[in-house]
């Protein structure tokens, strides 16, 4: 993952109720329940392509009282997990 990589969500539908996000993957037909942070990230990515820097900035807004390295670690896990699920593609 380089600094120049951009990310975007594949075709998904998002619904949110309070702290829960439910997303529908229109390609595979899978339905996922996500926590609020993952949900915010993936729904933001479904609306626009985002660079790593932008994603870090968004995470910093969502996650208060955490260190920079914890945020980086979260993003790394998020990208790995959602690419594996087929919900995220890098370009």
């Amino acid at each position: 993952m380089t600094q120049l990589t951009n990310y975007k969500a594949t075709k998904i539908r998002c619904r949110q109720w309070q702290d829960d996000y439910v997303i529908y993957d229109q390609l595979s037909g899978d339905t996922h329940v996500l926590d609020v942070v993952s949900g915010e990230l993936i729904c933001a990515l479904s609306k626009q392509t985002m660079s790593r820097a932008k994603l870090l900035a968004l995470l910093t807004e969502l996650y208060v009282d955490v260190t920079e390295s914890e945020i980086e670690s979260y993003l790394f896990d998020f990208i790995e997990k959602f690419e594996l699920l087929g919900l995220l593609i890098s370009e």
Partner: protein
Amino acid sequence: MKRPLLSCVMLNPKQVLEFNLPQWDLLIRQARRANVLASLAELLDANALEIPERARLHLKSAQIHADRFNIALAFEITCIEKALKDIPIALVLLKGSAYFMAGNNAAKGRVFSDVDILVPEQQLMAVEMALTNAGWMTNTLDPYDQKYYRLWMHEIPPLRHLKRQTSIDVHHNILPKTTCICPDAHKLLLGAIKVPESNCWVLAPEDRVLHSATHLFHEGEFSQGFRDLRDLDHLLREFATSDDFWPKLLLRAIELQQQIPLFYALRYSHQILQTPIPESVLEASKQRINTTLMDALFLRALLPDHDSCNDKWTRLARSLLFIRSHYLKMPIYLMVPHLLRKTYRRVIGKELH
């Protein structure tokens, strides 16, 4: 034999404007049994025809089914592309998945459940291994069935994906090795064309028609016969817009030794669905065949498998064609024990048909 209501409507959709409710009822039922209900829905939509509410709901229900399968098919093809990306072959799609990727009219409203691909015989093992590593597994563990496919047929046993439960048929030819006139698969692969903006390939138009023809006219079960004939009709109408299509088709049939299936395809598509085929082409495709007998069989078996389309000879016609298909696929010394085994397994409930 009387032309079914479904055929009449496919030839002239505007007829439905005169229909009463029982006629709509029969039309829907014939289309459902022929597995072309969604395709009929597309046709009626394309003609912007008014449809009674109940009939419309059945048509819509079938369209939803077909639409979902198309989305699933597109996804499945990308999964297969990923699984086979390290193997030095072109991903050549066959049948429905080919029509779908190539945007052929035959794909509209059609439900394609399995994906069929054609690979060079020498790459079969590599392909099978790559697919297995990506989550596909053979369904067929019976040693006899494994032998049937690997020794005699033109495909390995069907593979099913563990998670998605989708099937893929990997072919190395379009007809079994045991067939008298087995085409040269290498020629088919050489003629394949790339689908624009994709990593997939499809057979050349004339090969797509010939494959459809060989498949249908070597077939033993005709429950989908009308639908498959309609695919042929769609392909022929679409490709005939190219000036050189007909001569190419006739020549290619000779090259691949599939003149007989082509003759049947043109004859029955023309007679049952009134596919516009030049008289000279019909004449050039003629073979030395007892058409009286074959007409008696195919003109029955290729109609929708519905009571309203069958007559007292239909069942016999289908049975005879079933035996014929096995006779074509394999010599008698293989066919007889094979059919006996199939019958035994059907009786003890291990086979569905």
